[in-house]
């Protein structure tokens, strides 16, 4: 497709047209002897406002008939400069903005950041706080997978799944509200522990959820696994082998679906993940069905982890007693001068972190989420970077969907599970 220079176009539109399209177009040049009517290539703009793009993702799709020949993702529509904002805030005030990156896995974002800061500070996190973190992380993983399942099924044309998934998600959000007062972006994890202990009644409500959830996952399975339409759209579509995925930096359920059992919870357990007994679900061929099945199985494993963490929840403090890092308990403020000074220092300047650089990786619902923090010794980070799995995994999308039908491309995008808040940050 030759671009005619149009003088009325703005600079931006001209530059936009300068994006190099796929080389397939040259091969399909009618002058090369091919039949021009059959081989015509169409470049279709897809998004950024499209319900199947799971956010504001824009795709330039090169189509030959209904077959996808190339995909160029264009991102940045929800870029809010969170990494830049973080440089202007004290360490503990960074947590709320960091949580808003990948808005479906806020506990993981917070965990990656506080984990990095704790490594710099060399703070010991009490065991009870670690177990409470595991409970909330795994609840968050189930919640994220439920949103993925509901919206993916919606993309495949099944609307009722959405309601079932959001029913269980609501229970999890109620639990988050009980422990932290917020349903989303909870600011529950703090440097050195968690902000508050779980309230009375939380454990029994959580136990009720844990008893119910495996049966619910069975129900989802019954609805989808025996559904001819779902199976036809997922089985054998858009596979990608583990070697290619690794070279593209893809981690998480997508890599495990291709048969590589890489999971940071097992391989390099952070926090107290080493204490729990759980399995890593893996697929075989890495097609869309494996991606679907791996996430379904992960929900069951997460339930197991939470049950073990709840049963073995140790007694003790829920946040470190290092007063230079964590706020003193409220009752001490009335009686202790030092507590008052510490409180004042923490809420005004914040705590200072020794200079250095760390990279703290963990296993988020979408793969390796790494937080890089550079400290220059002041009370504000000199650099915060999130290695967001959605951002890296998106590069594999074109490799997966090339040569597939446009309908399969939609299914693949759903199974890729990109969160644009995390991609654009």
């Amino acid at each position, binding site marked *: 497709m030759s671009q005619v220079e149009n003088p009325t176009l703005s600079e931006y539109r001209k530059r936009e047209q300068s994006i190099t399209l796929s080389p397939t177009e040259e091969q399909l040049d009618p002058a090369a002897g091919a039949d021009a009517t059959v081989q015509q290539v169409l470049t279709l703009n897809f998004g950024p406002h499209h319900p199947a793009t799971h956010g504001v993702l824009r795709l330039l799709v090169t189509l030959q008939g209904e077959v996808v020949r190339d995909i160029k993702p264009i991102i940045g529509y929800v870029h809010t400069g969170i990494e830049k904002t973080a440089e202007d805030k004290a360490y503990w005030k960074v947590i709320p903005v960091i949580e808003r990156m990948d808005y479906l896995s806020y506990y993981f974002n917070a965990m990656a950041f506080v984990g990095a800061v704790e490594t710099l500070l060399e703070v010991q996190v009490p065991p009870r706080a670690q177990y409470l973190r595991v409970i909330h992380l795994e609840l968050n993983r189930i919640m994220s997978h439920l949103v993925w399942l509901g919206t993916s099924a919606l993309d495949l044309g099944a609307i009722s799944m959405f309601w079932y998934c959001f029913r269980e998600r609501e229970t999890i959000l109620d639990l988050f509200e009980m422990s932290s007062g917020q349903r989303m972006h909870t600011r529950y994890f703090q440097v050195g522990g968690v902000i508050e202990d779980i309230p009375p009644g939380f454990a029994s409500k959580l136990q009720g959820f844990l008893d119910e959830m495996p049966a619910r996952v069975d129900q989802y399975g019954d609805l989808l696994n025996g559904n001819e339409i779902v199976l036809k759209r997922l089985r054998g579509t858009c596979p990608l082998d583990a070697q290619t995925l*690794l070279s593209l*930096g893809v981690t998480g359920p997508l890599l495990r679906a291709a048969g590589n059992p890489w999971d940071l919870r097992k391989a390099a357990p952070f926090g107290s993940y080493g204490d729990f007994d759980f399995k890593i679900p893996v697929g075989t061929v890495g097609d869309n069905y494996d991606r679907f099945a791996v996430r379904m199985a992960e929900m069951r494993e997460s339930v197991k982890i939470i049950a073990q963490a709840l049963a073995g929840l140790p007694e003790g403090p829920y946040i470190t007693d290092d007063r230079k890092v964590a706020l003193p308990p409220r009752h001490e403020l009335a009686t202790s001068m030092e507590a008052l000074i510490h409180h004042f220092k923490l809420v005004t300047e914040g705590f200072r972190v020794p200079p250095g*650089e760390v990279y703290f990786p963990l296993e988020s619902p979408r793969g390796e989420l790494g937080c890089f923090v550079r400290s220059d010794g002041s009370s504000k980070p000199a650099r915060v970077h999130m290695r967001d799995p959605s951002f890296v995994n998106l*590069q594999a999308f074109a490799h997966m969907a090339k040569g597939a039908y446009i309908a399969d491309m939609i299914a693949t995008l759903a199974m890729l599970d990109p969160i644009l808040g995390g991609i654009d940050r």
Partner: protein
Amino acid sequence: MPDATGLELIAQDLRKTIGGGDGADPVLDTVFFRGRATVSVRAEAIRAVLAQLRRRGYSFMSSLHGVDYYPDEPRLGVIYELLDMSRVDRITVKVRVPSDAPELHSVTPETPEGPGWPTANHQEREVYDMFGVIFRDHPDLRRILMPEDYEGHPQRRDFPVGGEPVEFTFNEGEGPTSSRGAGSAR
């Protein structure tokens, strides 16, 4: 993680295998901090260093990101996080480039030194976008998160937070980054 001794062995190996014609030392510094091994290398040697580390087992690039060390020079840093999945071992490779010539070889494409790191494609674009580091031979070096016509590299330390006026209907076209040009008549 390689321990402090392991890091020195890796640095020695890099010095031995990547001598270069001019005999310059490819390894500038090694840091072992909080259980993490970091090796700083010369910018010209980055491809060879990563290829050699890949031969040693660090075959997965988990992250590539930029850092601004303002006001120090060389000011801009690019950090490569490598991972060895079979030994569950990580190493950080760091490169510094000066702000007046922020150029570096891209590690995305396949080169005579090795098969390249396709995962670096978007991440190098982000570093270019945010810090202005130019990756030579990158297949598609365009801005990725900021608009194509944006001026400046916002993640640099001397770029102000909120230094840009918000565009509303009443001041549309007057902003410095507006695509319609500054001060268009209304």
